[in-house]
């Protein structure tokens, strides 16, 4: 049995840009904006950092993408790419590096510049293939899960629309209170409910925002953390599960769940010692690339019983003032989704909540935060879960 990462590493500073269509900013601007905030937060200078794990999906290749812009003086920079888990995986690698003792201070940074390409939606980098795999739009990769969920649990189209609209209503309302979010505006429930389909049964409001942004974190070993600040954020679990595409190829899979997420969550809960996530977790920032993804996550992360997630959503369980706030930041939906930055941005929400800096969306007694990403499709993906807390043990 591996010893795991629980309580071995602490975050001592974080930074995050405003997310959105940052036509005013280059990659350099985004990186400098986030890193300067992070260094000030930790009381450090860039040369105090021993090594960097730099996550980007498609906005650069090697480590020099980072070092050129931040003028890093010949320190190791590793470029990380793991689709939508990129940011989380950069963080995971930085944590493992300090935990091993190979370095003392590491930075995990995720950055993405998606809006300079002139494309609508997400431009997916392609490689040589025979082009016989269908290439539908991104929402069309997740929409079949909503169709399947309706069929399995007997929801009418109207019930499904109400559920998904309720989720997105919540995320828009939360985003309205997030000064760094891409969309900071409440949207009337009726507007969301009556939007036209873009990938049946999903509408434009069921899709997250394609955004530019950067987020970063500085990590040290737990025993060093108090040297830097009295209130560090401790890492409780970091788990990633990459699937064999069994779901894609085998009829036993019914499209209402993401097996990779079940596995990553189970491993993370074991690592963190969590047995009742709905009760123990204070806030969850989850990968609502599409509303149906968030609905499946309620069940895959163990917050709701199978087939009950839609009812819990309608009952407000995951609202800002609900039993377990999910995407209190506004989520990918409202905060925006610059792929490489998202995972670390999710940790940033726990960072703010733990330090009482979450403004109008601040909740009391926040102790355990969780993040979840998935890169790929519901039937073949990489899924990542991290858990952080304010206390050791």
């Amino acid at each position, binding site marked *: 049995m591996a010893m795991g990462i629980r309580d071995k590493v602490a975050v001592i500073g974080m930074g995050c840009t405003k997310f959105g269509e940052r036509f005013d900013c280059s990659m350099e601007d985004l990186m400098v904006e986030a890193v300067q905030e992070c260094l000030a937060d930790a009381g450090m200078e860039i040369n105090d950092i021993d090594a960097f794990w730099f996550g980007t999906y498609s906005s650069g290749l090697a480590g020099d993408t980072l070092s050129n812009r931040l003028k890093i003086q010949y320190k190791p920079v590793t470029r990380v790419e793991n689709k939508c888990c990129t940011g989380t995986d950069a963080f995971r690698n930085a944590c493992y590096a300090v935990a091993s003792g190979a370095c003392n201070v590491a930075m995990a940074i995720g950055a993405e510049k998606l809006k300079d*390409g*002139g*494309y*609508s*939606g997400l*431009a997916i980098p*392609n490689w*040589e*293939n*025979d*082009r*016989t*795999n*269908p*290439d*539908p*739009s991104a*929402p*069309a990769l997740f*929409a*079949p*899960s*909503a*169709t*399947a969920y309706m*069929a399995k649990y007997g929801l009418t189209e109207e019930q499904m629309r109400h559920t998904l609209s309720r989720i997105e209503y919540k995320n828009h309302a939360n985003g309205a209170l997030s000064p760094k979010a891409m969309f900071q505006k409440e949207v009337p429930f009726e507007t969301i409910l009556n939007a*036209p*389909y*873009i*990938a*049946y*049964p*999903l509408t434009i409001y069921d899709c997250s925002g394609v955004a530019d942004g950067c987020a970063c974190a500085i990590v040290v070993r737990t025993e060093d953390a108090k040297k830097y600040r009295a209130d560090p954020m401790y890492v409780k679990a970091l788990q990633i599960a990459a699937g*064999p*595409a*069994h779901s*894609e*190829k*085998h*009829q036993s899979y*019914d*499209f209402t769940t993401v097996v990779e997420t079940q596995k990553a969550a189970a491993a993370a809960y074991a690592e963190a010692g969590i047995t009742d996530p709905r009760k123990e977790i204070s806030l969850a920032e989850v990968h609502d690339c599409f509303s149906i993804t968030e609905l499946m996550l309620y069940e895959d992360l163990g917050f709701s019983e199978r087939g009950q997630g839609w009812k819990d959503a309608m009952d407000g369980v995951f609202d800002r003032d609900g039993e377990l706030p999910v995407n209190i930041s506004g989520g990918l939906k409202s905060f925006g989704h610059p792929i490489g930055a998202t995972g670390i941005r999710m940790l940033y929400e726990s960072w703010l909540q733990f330090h009482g800096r979450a403004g109008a969306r601040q909740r009391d007694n926040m102790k355990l935060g969780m993040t979840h990403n998935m890169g790929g499709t519901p*039937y073949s993906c990489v899924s990542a879960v991290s858990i952080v807390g304010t206390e050791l043990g």
Partner: protein
Amino acid sequence: MIGIKRCGAYVPFNRLTRKKIGEAYGKKTPPGERAVANYDEDSITMAVAAALDCTAGYDTKKLDGVYFASTTAPYDEKQCATVLSGALDTRKEIRTADFAGTLRAGSAAMLAAADAAAAGKEILVGIADCRLGAADGPNELNFGDGGAAFLMGDTDVIAEITATANISADFHDLWRDKESRFVRLWEDRFAIEEFYNKVMLKAGKTVMEKAGLQPSDFSKVVIYAHVARYQAAMAKKLGFAPEQVQDGNYVMVGNTGAACAPMMLVGALETAAPGDKILYLGYGEGCDAIVFTVTEAIEQPGARPNLTRRINNKKNTMNYEKYLRWRGLLNCEPARRPRTMRSSLPEYYRIPEKNLALYGCRCKKCGTPQFPPTRICVECNAVDETEPYRFYGRNAVIQTFTVDYLAESQDPPNVVAVVDFGGGGRMFTFLVDAELDQVKVGAPVEMTFRCLQTVDGIRTYFWKAVLKLQKED
């Protein structure tokens, strides 16, 4: 006994009413509609569809050759018959050939196949056409798209070739040179009276004489003509009564070029009885005349073709602009998306059976079928224990689906479906040619061979799903 062992046909699902063409130009048009190949269909895919209809229940590994015939072959250089043979999952050690350039391409291929059949070979002939008439012209109104296929051999034939006659003579009544996409016509008075009427009459009379038969001996006569009225006139000149004339589907399908007379022949065999005589007169720079005698084998299960069911399976709500777009006659605004990449040919041909014949694999240890073929079983993880497994022809249903209004498409919205096959195995695929209200979880589907994309002149052929065509009319 040399002749047709099996036959089949294909008519594209989409039909354009002639009224919609007339509306575009403020003109009165003839009644009816024309069949329109979807944006992902061409002469190859329609020949494949007809050939799959023809060979249902037949072991295509027995084929000794595959011939493709069309005036609209998608490639000038690179054989099309090899795509057809690949989709049919034939052996590699066979003869393949493309017949092109004339409306007689279909009958030329059939007669060449009959000659091979006399030497004991079984040859599949796939014929299809997708011809263009210039906008606001008669050809645009009269043409239609479609295909037919014939399995020619010397045993178990349903229609024996009992006499043939040929006339070949150079002529320009319609032509299309290298620089033109559109078929051009000389005026009818000269073309019909000086050539068409003369060669058809001569070939028809010659072949009847050879066979020792009178017009009254025939149950049906298949007569190619550019338009219906010349067909009726020619039948009369030859001494046939109107009820003997096989319907050319000019009104509800259109003139399908090299496939026109062959499709009529399939229609004639659909209602034929043992002992019936059928006269076939194919036209194009001359005439191929063939007398067929229908045999008892037409009554065998699966032997009788069903063109009617293909003609009736349709959607006729498309507008004229969509037709122009599908044929590449409109400069449409491209989507704000990255340029489509061409197929990697090394990847496409690494396992050619996968793409052309729809092969996955099945694990010999646990029995799980899977697509695409893989080295390590997705279910039991056995390594290199798989065997080839063909998914085409298996029962399949929609497990779940979406209707994608966002992706770039020439026929939006795209339906994307997860298809589960009887016996196991699953594919994530496009579903085409469907009325949206018919697309449901659990709906039966079948696979159809289509051209997914054309980039740098590389046409990427693969399979999509269509709702299963009901056997009942």
